[in-house]
């Protein structure tokens, strides 16, 4: 189709659009140019991340507050179009990814502007309302105050149930914090309340942020550019390692509603409007709710469906990391990747590196390795045998 909505490139532009071939070169030791082997680079990056994540208990039910810094520093334009716009866009992607990976968790938004922090949205389980609120008010001015934000969040996070993991993620653009009192006391308070605070800085490394993260057990990272920022932000989406004393283990009462009959006409409890059919019926109080997961407004029962719980099972049953192997001469079999049937023998690369599952001994290519561990969470070889 030559006509497409969106960007239409002229024919001469298309030739250069994806092909900035000068960027794909680097010098080797003797000063000669050779193409960058991005595939191997990406794969070794991914393996470092994978092997660092040993099998530990993760906090699956998370109550996370995202703090967006809307002080003067957020209007800086070193990130195009401005830091605030980039932060908002990445935060939207993060919120969607967060609910995808943690369906039973809740997110709330807090902003810092003019030295005062303000709660933008209440902690809730629906991504759409959070994103709408975020995109609505994006103006920045004044100073930023870490203490005010943390005090506000501390008050709210004290009200959540004891089995939830309390987390704060601060997206900080400023280089200072103007606080009304002693910020170290606030840090102590957060530490005592077992709130895990992490910070992603956009400017430079700041001592107070580092101190906050170290004391509360969170992670402090500083972004180098837009894509790095997005990467750092998305790293907070999977559940972090859980410290056992931080959240009490509890059996939470939950309801598994069935869909109402198609021709049922009733008033839904979330929008207070008349709806016909296609809703879920709370098993305890029998009101109609529109979507899952949610908390029934009438009786307070948490309503989920079994796929929502199943979304978190891969954290409990992860796939073992694959071993890197290369070809041995005279080895029979293992010519093609077991998953995608692509040939593993690459004539122009020196070493035919690929991976092998330690349990089923099937060979896979690098791309399938990344896909299996990051998205699919099943080893096709192990699933295809008894």
């Amino acid at each position, binding site marked *: *189709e030559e006509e*497409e*909505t969106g960007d239409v490139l002229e024919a001469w532009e298309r030739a250069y659009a*994806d092909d900035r071939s000068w960027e794909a070169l680097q010098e080797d030791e003797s000063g000669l140019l050779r193409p960058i082997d991005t595939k191997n680079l990406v794969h070794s990056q991914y393996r470092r991340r994978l092997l660092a994540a040993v099998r530990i*208990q993760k906090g*699956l*039910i998370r109550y996370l507050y995202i703090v967006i810094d809307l002080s003067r520093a957020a209007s800086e334009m070193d990130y195009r179009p401005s830091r605030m716009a980039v932060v908002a866009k990445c935060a939207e992607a993060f919120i969607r990814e967060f609910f*995808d990976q943690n369906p039973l968790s809740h997110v709330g938004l807090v902003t810092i502007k003019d030295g005062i922090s303000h709660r933008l949205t209440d902690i809730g389980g629906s991504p759409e309302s959070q994103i709408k609120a975020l995109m609505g008010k994006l103006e920045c001015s004044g100073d930023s105050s870490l203490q005010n934000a943390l005090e506000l969040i501390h008050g709210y996070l004290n009200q959540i149930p004891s*089995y*939830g993991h309390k987390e704060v993620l601060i997206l900080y653009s400023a280089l200072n914090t103007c606080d009304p009192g002693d910020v170290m006391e606030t840090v102590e308070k957060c530490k005592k309340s077992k709130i895990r605070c992490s910070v992603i800085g956009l400017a430079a490394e700041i001592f107070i942020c580092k101190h906050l993260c170290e004391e509360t057990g969170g992670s402090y990272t500083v972004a180098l550019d837009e894509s790095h920022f997005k990467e750092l932000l998305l790293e907070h989406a999977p559940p972090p390692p859980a410290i056992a004393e931080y*959240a*009490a*283990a*509890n*059996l*939470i*009462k*939950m*309801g*598994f*509603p*069935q*869909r109402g009959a*198609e021709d049922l006409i009733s008033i839904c409890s979330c929008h207070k409007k008349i709806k016909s059919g296609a809703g879920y019926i709370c*098993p*305890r109080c029998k009101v109609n709710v529109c979507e899952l997961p949610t908390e029934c407004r009438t009786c307070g*029962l948490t309503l989920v*469906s*079994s*796929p929502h*719980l*199943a*979304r*978190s*099972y*891969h954290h*409990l*049953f992860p796939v073992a990391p694959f071993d890197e192997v290369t070809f041995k001469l005279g080895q029979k079999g293992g010519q093609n*990747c*077991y*998953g*995608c*049937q*692509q040939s593993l023998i690459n004539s122009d690369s020196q070493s035919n590196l690929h991976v092998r599952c330690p349990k089923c001994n099937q060979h896979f290519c690098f*791309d*399938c390795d990344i*896909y*299996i561990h990051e*998205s*699919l*969470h*099943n*080893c*096709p070889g192990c*699933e*295809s*045998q*008894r």
Partner: protein
Amino acid sequence: MTSAHSKLYSDDVSLVVVIVDTNPFFWAGAALPFADFFGHLIHFVNSLLLLNHLNQVVVIAAGVSSCAYVFDSGNAAASGSPDVAATFAKASRKVEEFVKQDARDTAGNGTVAGGGAASLFSGALSLALCYIQRVFRSGTRHPQPRILCLQGSPDGPEQYVAVMNSIFSAQRSMVPIDSCIVGTQDSAFLQQASYITGGVYLKPQELSGLFQYLAAVFASDLHSRAFLRLPKTLGVDFRASCFCHKKTIDMGYVCSVCLSIFCKYHKKCSTCGFCC
């Protein structure tokens, strides 16, 4: 739970990955003989290839002890125009070899139960998704992929976690999973798969007319599905079953650490051992 048409792909070109259940325990007692069923399938594969010259079809067989790729139209097309008889001969040969090998593996393996054995559906689904990822990597213009499952044997509950992982991965990549049940009972896994990924679930009433069902419902590409009225399921039962008695429950207790589901309140979670 939205349907999966997207304007990123070239409109009518599709890649269909067909997962065929070759469980010998099921086919031994089925109303439709496997040879007839395979004939219907091959005619369907050929019609798909005729609908658009760029269409691709891949067939994966799910046996009782192993899964394997049986047919890939990308390999066949290298020699020129697709020859209907040649497709049939090649695919039949490979399936026969696969079923024999599978039977040998099953006989040698003492753990298979017998009558109620399930086919390795999760393995075949994972292979299909890996293949589809390879197609996504092949460039900006690629066919719209979808998966069609022809399932007859019952669901294996030990595959629940693996099947759900595959379903969520398919949902993220926007690959619909269609299901056609050629057995006697409905499959809860496939109902959930089709519902979550936006595919079509069908249990034909007359298996002798299987080709007609396949051609009418499953041959249309994803872009055209927006204009067609395809069979809709009345509703999928998403209730969970408790870990202690395996019965479906309306309300239960979920452990906050390991997410196991119980029907009654216990002081200690039996899966992870955490006390409340």
